[in-house]
Structure formats: C-alpha cells, structure tokens
C-alpha cells in the first residue's frame, strides 16, 4: 500500500505542522514516510488567495519510501483557494476532503470561480469529494474550553489530522504527546482544545465510514534502530557536527542567508553548547572567506549557499584549491539562472560546481540523494576536506533541504575515523624535505595521499606563508616558471583523482548487463530507482545506478556503462551529467532525460520514458 496525501490551506492554517505530525505519526506506527513541504515564496500572501496557499505532501507506505510521491491520492483543502491551487497535484479520482464551511459563494468567487461550475472547471467529476464541516465541527469540539472564535478555529488543522489519521487507522498517541509538549506547559486549555479537535476528527472519520478496510497494517518498514524525522538541511548541519566531534576540529560556519540553504546556518547557530561557531557574514564572498580564514586557523570550516551564492564564492573557492585549504561548500540548488525560482528545486549547478572558477581548478563534487543521506554526505565531505586538505562542494537541493524522512540516528563512535594531517615541528624533524636550507618549513610538503601537512598557527617552528600565487612544488615559494606551473596543475588534478578511493563504487540495481542503464543523481534517485525497479520486475533488461561522486567520477560508472546497449541519464537540468559522461567515455549511446521544469520527477512519466528507451 502506497498513499500520497497532501494538506493545503492558507499560510496561517498550520498545514506544515499537520503534515509533519501526520508523517511522524505514520512513521511511529511503522510506516515508511517521506515528506515534502510546498510553500509559497511570499512570506504571507493575503488570506484566501491562491498566492497564499501553503501545502505539505506526505508519501507513506508499508515499505520504506524513497521520495515524496507523484500526484496525491488524498487532497485536504482547507479553503477554496487551496483546492484551486493544488487540484493539479491530485490524481483524477483523488479523495478530496474540504472544509465545506469555507466554500461559500463569496470565497469561491474570490478565487475566480463560480460555485455552480467549480466542480466541472476543476475536473472534480471523478473525485471522491468529502464535504466536511471542519470549521463548525472544530468550534463544537472545543466549545467547553471557552476559547475565542479565532483561537478555536486555530484547532481546525488538528481536526483534519484526526480525520486523516483515522482514515488509515494510524494511532493518534504520538500527535497527542506532541500537542501536550508544545502547548501543555504554557496553555493547558489550548492543549486540551487541540486534542479535543483531533479526537472529533477521528470520530467524524469513523462515523462517516471514511476508514478504509483495504489497508494492510504497517509492518516496520525500516531496519531496527532509533529513528527521528530529519530534513536535508538539518541533516547537513548534523553531519558537520558529527565530523567535528570525530575529527576533534572545532566547527566553523561562515554563511550568508539564501533560500533554500539558510536552514543549515540557522541549525548550526543553535548549537553553541557544542562549541559550534557561526558567522553571519556581510555577503556570500565573506561567507566563504571567513570559512577559509577559520580553516587556516585549524577549524572544520564550512560555508552554505545556493546557486547565486556559489557564483559569488567562485574566486575564493579557487583560492582554497590553490592554497589547499580544507573547506566544505554546500550548494542547496534551486531553479536558475540568476534569481530564478528560489523555492523550487533544480540540479543545474553541477557544471558550475565543477567548472565555475578561473583557471584549471579541479575540486571534489559530492552529491546527496535523500534527506537522511545529507548527513552521511556532509560527514564524508568533511572527511575528504580534512584528510586531503582540499575544498569539497556538496550538492543538495531544495527538495532534499525541505523534504523529511526517518533517519536512523547514529552515534559518533560508529562513524568512520577522520584523521587530518596535522603536524608539529617535532613530528616532521626526520623529514628533511619539509624544510628549506634556512630551516624554514616548506608549506607544500605533503603526506603519501598528497595532502599538504596542516601546520596550524600556534605550531612553533612551522611558520609559513600560503597564497593565491602559483608556487614551487613542495617548497611553496612564489614561482612563475612554466615547469612549476605545469607540475602544480598536474598535482592539483591528481589530488582530486585520488579521492575516488575514499568513496564506495556505484551499485547496480537490476540487470547486470542488458539493454538500458539508467543513471540518476541527487533528489531524483528515489523516483528513478522506483521506475526502473518496476520495469525490471516486469522482466525488462534494465538497471539503475545512482552517482554520488561526480568529480572525480565515482568508481564503477565508466565500467558499468560498457555493459548496456543504451544509457539514459535522468536529471533536472539540460543534461549536465550526461555531457560529463559523454566526455568521460566518448560513448555515443548516452541519452538524456532532462527535465527543465524545476519540479520533482513523476514515476509514471519516468516509466513511460524508460520504456521508450527500451524499444
């Protein structure tokens, strides 16, 4: 059983909260869940208007879930504007639960429809429309608590939570506990009113026979462990916190607010008790530059941004390449170019991350492909940066940043070791090549992994100068000689190439050889994997793989591609990874499914496209 449910209402109707509570209750009951909030770019558009509609989609299943789902099977619309705005996200025969109290002639006219013809105009003919008097039921349910009308109506979202939980026989204990915790201490009446509304919703669903009988009960969809709901931005922040704890390096984040990356800076700013230092810089450039300064000082330094910010950081990122500074840059991609679509997701910064700098300036580009994976990839990015003394770009996107899924909580002790090449004069005493004829430290001395020895200010006898000018290999003196420039250029490339050893090779899901290999990356991985799995189950000779290390190219990609007649790369851009793979292999059978709508992929559409590529 796989169900997609979408809550939609005014920005002030509490749709994000009800969506989160529904998904966490479902997860608590053992379902696999994946959520996706869909809120307007405007802070709070006028009430009852299409521009002000805020949505929250939950995909849950008796099995683990890897994406937010396609069109929803159930649409909750708190008012006419919500129905008008989100009808297009629902299937043709969706169940639509609406607050009939809010579907007055005037409210429908306000959003440009006629109450007589709205059903026809919105093509609701095949839908199962539940006209529930949500507002009135809420007022009745909370009457005993003596709240004013406005406060009483604020409990409407709990009433629809009750309806939807009951529809799937999901217990409401988790939600009640949450409500008690949120309001209990401050305002017992509000707490009680919300719970009363929740129970009224459950009763309504049961009495109206909305409770389905076709539902198989959830059987723990996830491996054993302690879980919590996490979104991609929080997971990135926590991955860095874990890496700081493991490596012993203090965590420093220099950033400038930008949608949809700001959540990472906000999350890190909370954790001063863990010693995390954050600087909200004066601009994107200062964001990365403060991080580079902190890196020079021995910190695990990170900066977080989105596409326009990455463009501004490019010169400083080149400095980090040149001076071999450990640094992680997180780009939470959004629709571009320019200001583009700030709240929508796209994967179009891939080539910017690889090439958006002056000169031959190679660096590691790593990709996260689910909200929980953001933790692992942030941790890995930090490990690569710290152990190999280099900048790493981590690409996530708006879908990952805001989407949530259950994360199996990890202890720092169970994570891979992180051992930065920090040195003291004593440790290097035997290594003559580390010092010049005057006994001064050669700053580009490196270990066997080509990682520059990290001599951190305060280390006696290792004073040295770094900079953006080209240098003599190892010795680090300024050099404009053609030989030195060529040697350093090769070294910069080799340093990046060797990082491929630190990342597990790709995994093939499906046929090990055959007609078609489908390649995806980032937030589309879940949907593409599901589409391919369906076709493979039908006996098609098709396989899927997800690329998480784009530069250097992850081990196994080129080798695997040789085993299929055709390659299809699915991505939300004009075909950027496809062009990289063509350059890496010179194969002429690489095709591209490139969606440029800045919308999540649709599994049904993917199945159709893949089928076309199988003919």
């Amino acid at each position: 059983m796989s169900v997609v449910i979408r809550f939609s209402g005014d920005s002030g109707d509490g749709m994000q909260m009800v969506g989160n509570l529904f998904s966490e209750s479902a997860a608590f009951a053992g379902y696999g869940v994946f959520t996706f909030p869909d809120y307007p770019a405007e802070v709070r558009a006028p009430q009852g208007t299409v521009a002000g509609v805020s949505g929250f989609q939950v995909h849950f299943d008796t099995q683990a879930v890897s994406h937010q789902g396609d069109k929803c099977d159930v649409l909750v619309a708190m008012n006419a504007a919500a129905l008008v705005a989100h009808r297009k996200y629902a299937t043709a025969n969706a169940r639509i639960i609406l607050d009939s109290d809010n579907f007055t002639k005037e409210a429908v006219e306000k959003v440009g429809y006629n109450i007589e013809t709205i059903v026809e105009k919105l093509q609701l003919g095949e839908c199962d429309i539940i006209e529930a008097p949500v507002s009135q039921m809420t007022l009745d349910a909370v009457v005993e608590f003596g709240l004013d009308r406005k406060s009483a109506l604020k409990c409407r979202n709990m009433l629809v939570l009750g309806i939807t939980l009951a529809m799937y026989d999901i217990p409401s204990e988790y939600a009640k506990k949450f409500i008690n915790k949120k309001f209990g201490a401050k305002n017992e009446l509000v707490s009680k009113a919300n719970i009363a509304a929740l129970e009224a919703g459950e009763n309504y669903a049961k009495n109206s026979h909305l409770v389905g009988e076709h539902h198989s009960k959830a059987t723990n969809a996830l491996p054993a462990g302690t879980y919590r709901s996490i979104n991609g931005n929080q997971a990135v922040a926590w991955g860095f916190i874990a890496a700081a704890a493991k490596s012993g390096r203090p965590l420093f984040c220099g950033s400038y607010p930008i949608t949809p990356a700001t959540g990472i800076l906000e999350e890190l700013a909370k954790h001063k008790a863990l010693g995390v230092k954050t600087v909200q810089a004066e601009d994107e450039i200062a964001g990365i530059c403060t991080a580079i300064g902190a890196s020079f000082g021995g910190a695990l330094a990170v900066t977080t941004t989105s596409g326009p910010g990455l463009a501004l950081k490019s010169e400083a990122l080149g400095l980090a390449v040149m001076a071999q500074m450990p640094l992680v840059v997180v780009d939470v991609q959004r629709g571009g170019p320019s200001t583009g679509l700030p709240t929508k997701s796209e994967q179009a910064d891939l080539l910017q991350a690889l090439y958006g700098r002056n000169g031959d300036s190679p660096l590691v580009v790593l990709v996260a492909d689910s909200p929980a994976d953001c933790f692992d990839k942030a941790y890995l990015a930090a490990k690569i940066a710290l152990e190999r003394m280099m900048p790493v770009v981590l690409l996530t996107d708006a879908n990952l940043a805001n989407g949530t899924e259950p994360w199996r909580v990890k202890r720092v002790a169970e994570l891979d070791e992180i051992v930065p090449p920090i040195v003291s004069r004593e440790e290097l005493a035997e290594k003559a090549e580390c010092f010049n004829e005057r006994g001064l430290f050669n700053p580009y001395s490196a270990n066997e992994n080509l990682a520059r020895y990290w001599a951190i200010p305060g280390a006696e006898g290792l004073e040295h100068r770094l900079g953006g000018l080209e240098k003599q290999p190892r010795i680090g003196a300024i050099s404009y000689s053609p030989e030195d420039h060529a040697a350093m250029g090769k070294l910069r490339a080799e340093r990046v190439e060797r990082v491929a050893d630190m990342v597990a090779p790709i995994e093939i899901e499906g046929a090990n050889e055959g007609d078609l290999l489908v390649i995806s990356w980032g937030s589309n991985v879940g949907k593409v994997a599901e589409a391919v799995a369906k076709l493979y189950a039908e006996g098609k000779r098709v396989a899927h793989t997800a690329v998480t290390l784009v530069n250097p190219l992850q081990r196994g990609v080129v080798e695997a591609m040789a085993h299929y007649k055709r390659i299809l790369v699915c991505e939300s851009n004009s075909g950027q990874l496809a062009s990289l793979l063509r350059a890496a292999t010179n194969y002429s059978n690489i095709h591209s499914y490139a969606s440029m709508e800045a919308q999540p992929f649709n599994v049904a559409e993917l199945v159709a496209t893949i089928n076309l590529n199988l003919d």
Partner: protein
Amino acid sequence: MAKIEYTPNDFRNGNAVKWCAGCGDHAIFNSVLKALPEVAERLDIPRENFAFISGIGCSSRFVYYMNTYGFHTIHGRAAAIATGLKTARPDLSVWVCSGDGDSLAIGGNHFIHACRRNINLNLILFNNEIYGLTKGQYSPTSKLGKVTKTSPFGTVEEPFSPAVLAIGAKASFVARTIDMELDLTKEMLVEGACHKGMAVTEALVNCVIFNHKTHADYADTKAIREERTIRLRHGEKMLFGANKEKGLVLDGLRLKVVTLGEDGYTIDDVLTHDAHCEDTALHTMLASMRYPEYPVAVGVIRDVQRATYDDEVARQISEQQQREPGKTADDLFFGGETWKVE
C-alpha cells in the same frame, strides 16, 4: 616556560624584498619588524601566534617577507578572511595588510563590516592613493581631478578618507601615520595590536613610480610635517608647528587653526585631544582635516573600548556550555522526538 625575547630580525624570513626602491612600503615593513617584539612582549605571545593576512596589491606582498604565519589571499577579502581566523582563533594576534584599492574599493564591504563588528584585528591600510600593482590607475582615495591612465582628463570622483570611513563604520581604534615617520608608525602599530577591537592605522605611503609625492605637500620633509601635520596625543593640547605655536580650536561647529597670542587666542582656548571620547563628532572632524585649510592629523585619533566580536562569540559559547555542561553530538542526535524500530 621562559619568555622569548625577540628582535626585529626574528620576524623576517630573509626573502628578498621586491618593492620598488623608494617605495613607502619598505618603511612600513621596517616599522612592523620593530613593533613585533614589543607586541609579543606586551601580549605575552610567541611568534607562532602571529598571523598576517593580506589581500592583493603591492602592500599585500608584505606577508611573503615575514617569518610569521601568513596568508596572501585574494583581492579585497583580507578583512573577511582575517575575521574568520580571529573568530576561530582568538588566541592569535591577527594583522591585516591592505591597500586603498584592496580595502576601500573591491573590499569596501568587508572593511566596513570588520569595523562595525569590532573584531580584534590590527589592520594597516597602506594609502598611496593609486593602483600600483596594475601600474597606475586612480583609486578610491585619489584626489579629485587626479590624472592617471584611466582618468586622462582627471578623476570626477570625490575620494574617501580611510580614517573617516573607519570611524564612521565604528572601528574602535583609528590612527594615521606617515611612511617616513618610522617611530610613529611603530608606536601606532604597537598600540593598534594591543588594542582590544578593530584597529585601523592609515599609513600615508608614497608610490615612487605612479603617484610620486602625492602626500608631499604635508609629508615631504620633517620641516613640512611639523608645519602641516598635527600629532595627536590623548590628553594633550592640539598644537603643531615647529615651536608648537599653532593650535586647533572649536569655532561653532567647525575646527579652526589659530596662532597662540594672535587674535586673543591662548593655550586655554586650544582643544585637548580625547581619543577615548565615545562621541565620534570631533574624531571625524580631526580625521577629515585636509591640507591646506588644516594640518593633517596623525597619531591615535580614536581609541575607545567596546565589546569585540570574537570575545562575544566566545562568551555566548561559554554561556551555552555552562547551561548544558558536557553536551555531546550524541546527546543532540538522540535528544528530542525519536522512536524505536525493533
């Protein structure tokens, strides 16, 4: 551990200094070398706890001649990089070497925000009023009408005064010196380095190739400097001239130059310099003084105490750590709303 006594030579790495012969940067370099042993002594820190951060430009080559930790970065960004370094490592003495183009044009934003935050840096602003490394284009401090390669008919832009800008941006320590005044420079840099907060010292330096004698009207010889500059000292009367016969008085809302004994002015009418005054009005007027109407102010113009950014960041961290002593990453990850799957 026995305290190390340093000499100026301990702070240079022996690399050949490559500024043009006659460049004012040589003089600043020598003053810095002389200042450092004294700063190490006063702050009680060893050489390895000094870091020099520079941007791009002639003056930014500075770090390559030092035997401290150093980072020659990118154009305009030294203040931002130094901000990150000092925030991460409050135990270091962080110096910034930057020019008028580096700090006031391409890096203007970072400069003013470093001043506003009052981060504990010691910034030397080498002001030669020209782009030297790119070979002679006007800068944000070039005098109005200045003819350069990119202003063949003279500039049409009013220049910044770095010291005025720094005061306006809330730097807590603002001084001015002249390249040839080695002792003054050394004194300003020692004071700036020991000051808690953002210290900006504007050094008027001569570019012998592209902007020769740009400061000559008031800085060329000792005799000229005596007549056309005024050395400000906290708590002392604002007097100048070979025999300290001239002084500054307040005439309404403006400063005025008077000669003692003329027009009825006596020493009692002359202003006393209060570098510690919170109000910026008089400091701004002093920093704004331009020759020939006024003498050019040198010395410490402003020196006030206020909370530094790096201290405040550290304070918040220590407060939160006291609130949740011993908190670990595991505590964070396993705290809050979790559920178990058996």
